[in-house]
Every structure is written in structure tokens, then in C-alpha cells.
């Protein structure tokens, strides 16, 4: 039976050395590109390890692609490709040997493993460097070969742990482009764990934010971004003050945000026409005009603040109960 969900977690608790790391986590993530976010110690890597069947589930259940990693760990690992955060490789091998060896370990027949290793290396942009030993690779190439070895056995789901670590802007962009290509065109789901909100925003369509072992927020990024009130973000070329005056004459409120960005709140029925009138009157050009959305940064911060607040409240409640009794 083909599962539509990449990840299905209910009431999951996981202990590490008798410390509860994941506390009653519940989430359902459909297949696609999923961003896994959270500060240090939020439980991201614990969750990744539980998904691969390395850790014992204390309570609740977890399904990866419909499989239970507790009982069917090898089944799960057959269907996923894992790109670890650390700089990992098997020394003394050429790139193509290494990747085909990884394919073999995942159950590919010998010839097929070699074929797919070449293909995977080409796909990850290491075609020219296939026959070099990995010991001579640069940081950017090491990141790529980690991706190539995760892809070689044609997984359904990729776990990517900080894939852009240590890359310069161009390296980072091409890595993100590659990941997006994989998720959009190759029908492979991705769970991307990263400290860079921007990476998640460019690649993922869903997000799971963990904080102190609990789910701070989860869902489609598009839905989380939507804001109730209609407001526009505007950037001008020209004198902002005269534009603000022109808007004020029309009874429209306008605030300056950072970077000369203006925030204008208008009624839904007014439409954008008034804004252009005001711009013409003020002699400025509207260079950018977009409905205001929450950024992932704002979603992340507010989710964490809320979770933090809730937890503090519940502890103070407990304290009160204690002091009463």
C-alpha cells in the first residue's frame, strides 16, 4: 500500500539517557518538500534518528512512508537517502567507487550500482571529478558527493541535514537549485533540516518547527504566511515623505518599515488604483508592491514565542497548585 504521507507521528515520546527529548509530538506531513526547523536542542536530530529506526520509541507511534521504523527499520532505510551534516566519506576510494559502494549496500546489483553511481554523480554536478579520490575534494564537492550517495539507490524520501553548510553564495544557490529540482521534477520527497530559514523558504512547501521537544507549528508555508488584514508592502524610487503625504490626503495610513519599505493598509474595495494616483501626485515611482505576507522568519519567531509562553504558563500553574497544597 502506497502511503500519501511522508511522515505520520502521533503522541511520540523519545528518551535519550532517561531525558525526554521528544515530548508528545504529533504531526502529519504529506509527501513533498518538508522543512525541519528549530533551535539547538529542539529535537531535530533525535527525530531524524527515530525516523531511521536508531532510537527506541518510548510512547506513541511514528510512520515513515507508512512503515514503522521500530519494526521495519531496514525497510525504511531502503526507501530513504540520508545526507548527514558531518563531513563523512569512506577514505581511500574514488568518488565513483564510493557512490557505487553505497548503492551496493542499498541492494543494487553490481552493474546497476556502477551505472547509477555515474548517473548520480553527473546529476549532482561531479561528472568531471568522478575518478578523483574523495580525500582531494573541496567542501562544496564533499556536500555534493554526500547528496550523490544519498540518491544512488533511487530513494522515495531524502533526509538532508544542513546541506548548505560551509558553501559560498554560488555553491549554496546551486545546491538549493539541485534540491528543488529533485523535489519538483523527480518526485522525491525531501526533509530538509537547516538553521537557515532562507534555505527552507526557497526549497520547501511545508514546514515542521520543533521547540524544546514539542511542535511549535507545522503545515504548508503558504497557509502559514497568509495574514488576515490586507496590507501592501511598497518600495519607491523617489521621495517617500511626499508619497506618505499624498496618501494621508486620501485618508490612507502608511508606515515606514526598515530598508525604505512602506507598509500601507487599504480597504479591500479601494483597490490599488489610489496608490498609483498618490505616486503620480508625489512624483515617485512604485518599484515594488506586494500583498504583505508573514516571512518564515516571523512565523518561526512567533511560533517559538508562543510555545515558550505556553510552557511558562503551565509551569507557573503547577507552581501555584504546589504552593496552594
Amino acid at each position, binding site marked *: 500500500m502506497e502511503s500519501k504521507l511522508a511522515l505520520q507521528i502521533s503522541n511520540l515520546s523519545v528518551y535519550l539517557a532517561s531525558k525526554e527529548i521528544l515530548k508528545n509530538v504529533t504531526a502529519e506531513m504529506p509527501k513533498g518538500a518538508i522543512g525541519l526547523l528549530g533551535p539547538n536542542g529542539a529535537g531535530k536530530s533525535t527525530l531524524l534518528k527515530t525516523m531511521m529506526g536508531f532510537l527506541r520509541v518510548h510512547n506513541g507511534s511514528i510512520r515513515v512512508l507508512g512503515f514503522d521504523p521500530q519494526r521495519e527499520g531496514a525497510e525504511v532505510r531502503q526507501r530513504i537517502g540520508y545526507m548527514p551534516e558531518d563531513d563523512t566519506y569512506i577514505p581511500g576510494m574514488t568518488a565513483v567507487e564510493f557512490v557505487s559502494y553505497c548503492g551496493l549496500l542499498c541492494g543494487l546489483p553490481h552493474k546497476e550500482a556502477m551505472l547509477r553511481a555515474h548517473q548520480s554523480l553527473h546529476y549532482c554536478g561531479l561528472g568531471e571529478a568522478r575518478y578523483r579520490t574523495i580525500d582531494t575534494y573541496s567542501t562544496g564537492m564533499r556536500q555534493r558527493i554526500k547528496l550523490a550517495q544519498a540518491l544512488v539507490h533511487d530513494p522515495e524520501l531524502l533526509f538532508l541535514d544542513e546541506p548548505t553548510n560551509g558553501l559560498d553564495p554560488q555553491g549554496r544557490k546551486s545546491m538549493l537549485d539541485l534540491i528543488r529540482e529533485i523535489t519538483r521534477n*523527480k518526485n522525491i520527497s525531501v526533509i530538509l533540516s537547516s538553521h537557515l530559514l532562507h534555505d527552507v523558504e526557497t526549497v520547501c512547501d511545508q514546514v515542521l518547527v520543533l521547540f524544546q521537544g514539542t511542535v511549535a507549528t507545522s503545515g504548508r508555508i503558504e497557509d502559514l504566511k497568509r495574514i488576515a488584514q490586507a496590507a501592501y508592502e511598497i518600495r519607491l524610487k523617489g521621495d517617500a515623505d511626499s508619497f506618505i503625504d499624498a496618501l494621508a490626503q486620501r485618508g490612507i495610513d502608511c508606515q515606514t518599515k526598515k530598508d525604505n519599505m512602506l507598509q500601507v493598509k487599504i480597504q479591500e474595495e479601494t483597490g490599488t488604483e489610489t496608490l498609483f494616483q498618490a505616486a503620480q501626485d508625489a512624483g515617485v515611482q512604485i518599484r515594488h508592491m506586494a500583498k504583505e505576507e508573514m516571512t518564515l522568519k516571523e512565523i518561526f519567531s512567533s511560533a517559538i514565542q508562543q510555545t515558550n509562553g505556553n510552557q511558562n504558563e503551565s509551569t507557573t500553574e503547577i507552581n501555584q497548585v504546589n504552593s496552594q497544597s
Partner: protein
Amino acid sequence: MPVYEQTYSHYEGEYRPRSLAWTLIARRGIIQTWRKKWFRIILMFCLAPFIIMTLRIYLASNMELLNLLEFNTSAVKDILNIDEKFYHTFLLIQSFPCFLMTLFTGADLIASDRRTKALTLYLSKPITRLDYLFGKASIPCFYLYLVSMIPGLFLMFFYAFFNENWMYLWENRQIAGRIVLLSHVYIIPMIALILAISSMTRSKVSAVVMFCVISFVPDTLVNILYNLVQETWINPDYFSLFSLNTVNRQLGAVLFKQEIPYDLHWGWYVSALAVLVALCGLILNKQIRAVEVVK
């Protein structure tokens, strides 16, 4: 003419059964070890006694050659007596090559994977920890067979071949069994020990040093203590349980019905080895798990 886009494609074929995963690790490791030139030189050195022994068998089978050379003294005849003792001597000599092979094939097995964090990669594939360990253990095992059991059996085969007496093999099947048994007495504890040591460190050098220390220091200590407590109430033979070398010598003598060096029942020695292997197993279990759990 169609236009092909050179890109990633999905795999439609079958995956091989997972029970074979350990053979892949073993194969890879055996090939990689063989590729090293200095290793092949050491292997040749380790097989030198085998060549000398083969020569002995050849001479023993061609007495007329010695007569021709007028070399047929009683001392020479003694050397050329091919019996149980001959095979026992061969295996006794091979215990040092066995040590060398273990050291050179085993010390870096897990240490290198820990150094480059490759263990995480292995364990993220659909293989179990047991597959990994079994695969890794097979690498020194292969080369240890190559310097102990296999040449031992070949010596018997050569004797039969030179004398054209194929019944010899059947008549002496017990000796063959003893060769196989004693080889395993050598091999199993050594592999367990080297894997456990290799899993505790990230550096090849410290694994090598640790293995040498564990192999030689107890042996020397046992000898010193053995002589020290000769005249006291302590039975000095008990010390022989604490050195791999003395244990192997005792069990070898028992198996080949030779004069036994220590006055203790062989059960003690087997138990000592079992304890050692179990201890190594525990260490491996803890170390390999630690990599999974603690990052």
C-alpha cells in the same frame, strides 16, 4: 530521432536480498587491503614458513634424493618425520604471522570509519549493526585463514600429492580437524580483540599500539609472575590464563596431544577465551551503538 535528456532516472529493477549485505563489506575490505603493496610484502613474509615446510615434506617424500646427497643422518630423519607434531609446529610458528595479519588488516577497520564518520553512512543504509560487524570481521578472518588453516591443510595435501598416497588424507582426517580447530582458536579471539580495540579509537596508531600492548605485556607479566610465585602457595599455572599466547600454546598442545606446558584442565582455557570474546562483544555493542545515539 529522439532527444534524450541526460539526467536522473528512477530505478525500476529489483533490489538484492538484504541478508547478503555483509558480503559486500567483506569483499570491499578484502580488495582494498590487497591493493596495498606493503601489505602484500608482509603477506609473503607470513607465508615463508609454509614454503619451508613444503620443502620439508618434499624432501621427506623423496628420501632417495637425500641418499644421493649423502645427507641421510638420523638428525635429518628426525626433522623429516611428518606426523602430528609437524603440523603442530607449523601452527605454532604461524601464531606470529597470525598476529601480524590481525594487526595489519584489523587495526584500522572501525577506527578509520569513526575518523571519517563513515559509520553514520553505513548505518543509514538498510543494513544492521550485525551486518556491519560481520562484514568487517570477515576481512581479517579471510587473511588469517590464508596464513593458518589453509596452508596447514595444503601441507597435508602436498604430503599426499608427493607420496601419491591419497588415502593419507582420509586416514589423517583427525589431524585436518585439529588444524581447523586450532586455527579458529587463534583467529576468533584475535579478531574479536582487534575489532573491539579498533572501535574504541579514531586513530590507527593508537589501535596498533593497544593491540601490541595487549598481546605482549600480559605474556611477559605472566612469565615473570610464573617464576616469582614458584615456591609459594599460589598455583603459578593460573597465570597462564591471562595471556593470549599461553592460552593458545596450551590449547594447541592439548589438541595435538603434545606435552602440555601448564597443569590446568583445557576447559579453563576455553572459558578464558569465551570471556575475552564476550567482553569484546560487549564493547563493540556499546561503541557501535554510541555512534548512533550520541552525535
